């Protein structure tokens, strides 16, 4: 006998409505997702997609071979591994980063493997941020920091990187964007539980200097605050700049979680393998969250990452190291993009690191202030939509990386990803050339 199902969507008058509230309160205010909107638009039009941050070139051969090996060797790699990380991976992460951070890192106590750095961030917030805790977030910020703080019942406290004025004709630089020390100090209260730092920074591309990190470190120690350091772009540094891990500064290891990403390290974002490193006193709480959320991470991706790190450990610091070659190649892409964008009047801010640069669109805001969009929609969002529809280029409006009250203030920048193949950059050039031609009266 066929069961006739009457479904709520088919019959609106039978719409499901619970008498009690349906979704949990922790989801309030965090359901919006800017990526879905812009990603959708980018796929609907014929565009060169310089929006979302992933490479359009493959991972290096040794990484692909590592994955192949993980799939074709022991068939037991198809089954669960250790909950807190596949042992060869936690072992090599401990030794590799132990050296970099100047710490003895125990693979069992100081390392947790997660589903991407995103998963590490979530685990850290859930483990350590409580109802009413304040979390200092440096603006502009990778957009998940705010909703993750809110979902944990925390209160985000924003402090803004501010650019100093540049000379006419000179390009702005991400290093020019700085925190005011007095302003930063004023954000710390007795309720401050954590500060989230991202270096190299997404979207601006700033690489925090030692002095800047020392300032943050001293405030964290003074106010007894945990530092969550998102260092996914640690290898993507240019022009001879050096990435510094705040956990390596005096007094910081015991209060810092250092988060990293295999996706960004090996140009394999789809593997979704990340990690958190830190003292056992903090890591044990992340482990508790982990065992009550996803419990295990997929095994084979971890095996591939372990093998890839073996390769890098062997070649560390040498020209054959991927962590040397990748930033060298990407720096050229960056420079290409900087040159090209200027041809249509976009003003790129030169990044010292990360996958991204932001470009100032103030001139466009002056010349064409009335682009289609909602009444209260920040200019940069309207500009990006216009650019997708009319110029065949997709990017991300930088106001999505700001707290709601500041979006109108910082609505004149657009973020471009330059970790793209030469062919993509050439396609970008073609679109820009056409745009430039259209500018001539």
């Amino acid at each position, binding site marked *: 006998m066929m069961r006739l199902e009457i479904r709520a969507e088919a019959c609106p008058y039978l719409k499901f409505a619970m008498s009690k509230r349906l979704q949990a309160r922790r989801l309030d205010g965090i359901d919006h997702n800017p990526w879905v909107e812009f990603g959708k638009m980018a796929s609907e039009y014929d565009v060169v997609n310089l929006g979302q941050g992933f490479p359009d070139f493959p991972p290096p051969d040794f990484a692909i071979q590592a994955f192949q090996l993980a799939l074709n060797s022991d068939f037991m790699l198809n089954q669960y591994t250790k909950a807190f990380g596949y042992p060869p991976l936690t072992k090599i992460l401990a030794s590799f980063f132990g050296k970099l951070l100047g710490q003895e890192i125990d693979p069992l106590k100081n390392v947790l493997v997660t589903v991407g750095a995103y998963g590490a961030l979530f685990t850290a917030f859930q483990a350590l941020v409580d109802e009413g805790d304040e979390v200092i977030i440096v603006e502009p910020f990778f957009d998940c920091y705010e909703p993750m703080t809110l979902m944990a019942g925390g209160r985000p406290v924003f402090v803004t990187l501010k650019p100093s004025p540049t000379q006419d004709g000179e390009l702005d630089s991400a290093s020019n964007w700085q925190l005011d020390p007095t302003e930063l100090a004023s954000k710390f209260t007795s309720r401050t539980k954590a500060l989230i730092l991202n270096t190299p920074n997404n979207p601006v591309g700033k690489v925090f200097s030692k002095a800047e990190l020392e300032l943050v470190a001293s405030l964290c120690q003074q106010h007894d605050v945990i530092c969550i350091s998102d260092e996914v772009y640690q290898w993507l540094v240019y022009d001879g700049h050096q990435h510094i891990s705040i956990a390596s500064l*005096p007094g910081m290891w015991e209060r810092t979680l250092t988060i990293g990403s295999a996706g960004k390290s090996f140009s394999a974002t789809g593997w979704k393998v990340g990690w958190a490193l830190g003292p056992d006193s903090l890591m044990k709480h992340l482990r508790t969250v982990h065992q009550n959320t996803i419990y295990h991470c997929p095994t084979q991706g971890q095996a591939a990452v372990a093998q890839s790190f073996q390769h890098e450990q062997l070649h560390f610091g040498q020209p054959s190291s991927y962590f040397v070659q990748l930033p060298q190649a990407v720096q050229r892409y960056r420079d290409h993009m900087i040159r090209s964008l200027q041809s249509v009047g976009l003003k790129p801010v030169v990044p010292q690191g990360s996958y991204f640069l932001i470009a100032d669109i103030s001139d466009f805001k002056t010349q064409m202030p009335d682009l289609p969009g909602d009444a209260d929609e920040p200019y940069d969002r309207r500009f990006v939509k216009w650019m997708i529809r009319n110029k065949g280029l997709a990017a991300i409006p930088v106001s999505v990386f700001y707290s709601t009250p500041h979006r109108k203030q910082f609505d004149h920048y657009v973020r471009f990803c330059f970790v793209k193949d030469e062919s993509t950059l050439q396609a970008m050039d073609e679109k820009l050339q056409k745009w430039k031609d259209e500018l001539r009266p």
Partner: protein
Amino acid sequence: MFSAQRRLWSLNSTAKFLTINSSKILGLPTSAKMSLKITNAKRIEGLDSNVWIEFTKLAADPSVVNLGQGLPDISPPIYVKEKLSKIAAIDSLNQYTRGFGHPSLVKALACLYEKFYQNQINPNKEILVTVGAYGSLFNSIQGLIDEGDEVIIIMPFYDCYEPMVRMAGATPVFIPLRSKPVNGKKWSSSDWTLDPQELASKFNSKTKAIILNTPHNPIGKVYTKEELQVIADLCIKYDTLCISDEVYEWLVYTGNKHLKIATFPGMWERTITIGSAGKTFSVTGWKLGWSVGPHHLIKHLQTVQQNTIYTCATPLQEALAQAFWIDIKRMDDPECYFNSLPKELEVKRDRMIHLLENLGLKPIVPDGGYFIIADVSLLDADLSGMKDSNEPYDYKFVKWMTKNKKLSAIPVSAFCNTETKLQFEKFVRFCFIKKDSTLDAAEEIIKAWTGQ
């Protein structure tokens, strides 16, 4: 504070070093003061212990025959491994895919499950791909369960249900499966039932959801139509949600049929149904699971997803999609893995029942799943040597058995809440999704044990 010295990896002399400031070099104390603020969030209070961590460590000794953790030691089907192997070579599959589920995978899942729901399933709005079924349970509970809510959990229960409900600030309300007396015939998982009146008494205006697990871990019960109807009636009467954990949906044995509570009248709109690639294709290490349900529920799980892990691994999802297409096309064929695996496992189940009976135990024959529980008190093992007399009987028994008989299992009281551990403390769970040589080794141990 830090563990014993690890041999520091020494670099080639031509390598460049980053300048490192170590607190040790500068002579500063590594922990100037014990911080008062570096405390954990309240949501994880009391959730730090975990039975698996403890028992998998015990069973890690290679000389132990491990019938504990639910982990197949049989090979996944060849075509599943082959698909994954080919995929790693495809460029685009090494980068991010769609957050709520890789397009080809959600399409395959929609196509598969439409056969059961007899309605179209929207792959983008009514399906979410998660990090294992574990991730789907987490997303469901975080998305739909609030502080102050009550959630009914049927005992014994897969152990993560209770901590996940507590982590959401809600109160678990327990109801045990109770066994009818069995006179003369074999003890079956179907002898374990819920008392309808007792179940009804657990529902009230605060009840937000009931978590159902069918086929059931650890008993192996496959809920009948009548039993599911009782639960459905209560869900509708009290306007509650149903989170239906159906990871073992294909593993049902002769004479039994897996039924989806979401297909019952009035249930689609209030049910999240959870499945698992790990259990479907014997690839637990792929950690892919899914939730199927109406958009007005799934959208909240999607919100959790975009604020937790955002997206699952791409190559595994594509491989899974391709493996599904192979079996979706031949669902009536005995070669289809959804048919062949339960056939293979039924033989192993019967063998294991026989072995446990030889040992003098009374195992409960499961109608589904890949576990068997048995009352071990009949063996009257001498556990006086085991320290920590506060532990339940089955914990001590498993530790004793692992140490002295080189056979490991899982204590069933781990699947009970603190107050009711005693109800199940004589039972131990054995996993039978094991290759023949593992079962042979178990047989040898049992023969030696009984002095045969």
